[in-house]
């Protein structure tokens, strides 16, 4: 499954389409081989009666999966947004620290976000969050903030500003890791595949009874089933495959941090 969800959109569509066509071809071959004229007529009539039910079942199952997976993708994007927002708060909070401390915190923050930008998605795609370079740099960021927070010379508001923001960053990252560990519900997906195959078989039976001209309708259904299943796979992994969570907000924040935009004593020309 991980292999399928890692494919890019074109490869995924072509592969699923090819598989669906092969399965459809096999069904069509079996129907022509084992169903004679009168039986075909009878089976066609029966199949026509089940078309709506099977179509609805397939639509409900895939609709549910698409909705659920897309929600996960959107939630993950929102979590990344929260992480960026917390990181941004941390950067702003660090400007109230003595300059040397503020730079230490911002440097560690930029290093962490830089590592997220470069290596976190790949690590999460393989469900290996601990292998992400961001794991170490987050630890260093936590340590830097914790060290600063113990300083007697800081006011309570300054300490709570940085510690509150770092909690937000850590929590958001933890949520990302949890989501990355989640898999597409295999049973539900398998049920959708079975419903799709049944729908295709049904459509072929109806087409076989109605004649070759109606084969185009069956082809349409085959395409819809293939694209539906491909869509589910495409959006089911937020950190790999064609529909990934956008890393651009993190990238932008890294650039802002490294150019000194969060240092109130740097004039950006």
């Amino acid at each position: 499954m991980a292999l399928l969800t890692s494919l890019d959109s074109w490869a995924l569509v072509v592969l699923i389409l090819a598989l669906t066509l092969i399965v459809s071809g096999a069904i069509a071959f079996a129907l022509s081989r084992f169903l004679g004229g009168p039986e075909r007529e009878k089976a066609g009539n029966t199949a026509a009666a089940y078309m709506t039910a099977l179509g609805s079942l397939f639509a409900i199952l895939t609709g549910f999966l698409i909705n659920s997976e897309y929600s996960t993708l959107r939630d993950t994007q929102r979590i990344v947004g929260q992480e960026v927002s917390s990181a941004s708060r941390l950067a702003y909070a660090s400007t109230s620290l003595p300059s040397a401390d503020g730079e230490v915190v911002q440097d560690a923050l930029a290093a962490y976000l830089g590592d997220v930008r470069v290596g976190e998605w790949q690590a999460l795609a393989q469900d290996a969050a601990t292998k992400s370079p961001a794991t170490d740099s987050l630890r260093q960021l936590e340590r830097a903030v914790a060290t600063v927070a113990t300083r007697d010379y800081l006011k309570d508001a300054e300490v709570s500003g940085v510690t509150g923001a770092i909690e937000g960053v850590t929590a958001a990252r933890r949520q990302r890791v949890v989501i990355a560990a989640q898999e597409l519900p295999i049973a539900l997906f398998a049920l959708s595949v079975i419903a799709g195959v049944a729908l295709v078989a049904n459509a072929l039976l109806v087409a076989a009874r109605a004649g070759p001209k109606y084969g185009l309708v069956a082809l349409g259904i085959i395409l819809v089933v293939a694209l539906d299943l491909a869509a589910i796979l495409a959006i089911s992994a937020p950190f790999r495959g064609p529909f990934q969570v956008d890393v651009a907000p993190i990238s932008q924040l890294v650039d802002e941090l490294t150019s000194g935009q969060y240092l109130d004593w740097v004039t950006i020309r």
Partner: protein
Amino acid sequence: MRARIALAVGAIVAAVGLVACGTPNPERAARQECAQSKDACVLVGVGRPIYLGTLLLETDPAGIDAKRSAQMAVDYLDGVFDGVDGELMGHSIAVLAEDEDCTPKGGIAGAKRLLLEPDLVAVIGTTCSAAAQDAAATELSRRSVLMISPSNTSPKLTDPATHERFYFRTVFNDLIQGAVVADFAREKLGARTAGVISVPDAYSKVLGDAFAKAFWGAGGRVIARGSMRFRGSPDRAVAALAANPPQVAFLPLFEPDCSRTVKAIKATPALSGTKIIVSEACQSPLLVRALGEQAAGVYASGPDASDLRQGAFYRQAYLPAYRKAFGENPPSVFHAPAFDAVNLLFGAIRRSSVRLPGGALIINRARVRRSLLDVQGYRGISGILTCTSTGDCAQSARIAVYRAPAWPTLQPRAKPVFSKSLTLAEVIGQG
């Protein structure tokens, strides 16, 4: 039909080309900038250190202090004063140390030795203005190597007519010190006449001139000027003052010239009523040790240490760490500007470098300089710093005058007898 297909293909290729060209690629841009000259950039490979030089007078408390402070700034890169050096953008810092001997010759020789390292990014130094003016600053600027001094106070170094492009300093300009000492002599001591003994170098003579100009401006008269050779005998200069005894003698000198001159003045009966003021370069325990009891009552100008003590970071983190690391209080007033100088440099490197995949860095020297010019209102431990294109980062300073033995280098909580804050704009405007 073929023409249409060709047109469509052409349009797609052009669109892709436009997108590719329009996408900013910092690495490509950095490499193009670096290709312009061999000194333009430093490529810091993976696992390689960033080279930083120190060019200080290592036998003088000011130089020792600045060197220690630079070490502390490297230590604090990881946010803790623990004696373990931190890293800058994943690279360690290698500090190459050279001595500048407080002379132009020494400054040039030291700069040349540092430049033997082709990947040298910047130099902290010099201690003496004399080693910078027409010396180290020129050598380093020629190779686009940034130089930030924590203790060069000569106005000449940041005069637009003589300023070297890659030269900066975090310490105050002596135009401010000269004006405050003149105000002290006039307002607090009520002196109407003053004398100056200086060495003909970029620091001593220029500070003496700044004091004399400000003293005249405040309604006083400079009635005697004495000149002596660096590390030479003060007798002739003191005799010049004795010929026309002033109420105040200002000595902008270095050790050991300072203590020798004070001794000579104290031994001259004609100057028994002359009050002695030494500049910040003499404000060290060395002078008090050399003079013993004779040091009592000698005034010394320098940055107001109470300003430093107001900073909680300085008081509660920096100073205890300094004492722990070196077993004593800072022996001069230049540790604070040195710490700020190194931190400003690190910040400029962070903001201007391009990180390559894998961790290597491209440091463009001109960009580091431009980054320093972006600094506006940096809250350093020595004060608020704003760097200008003429190299002055300390736009204002509170200069205090202390009376021995209550000097901050001897008694950290010493109270000044006079203190005044002036901005560079104010003193230049007055001039």
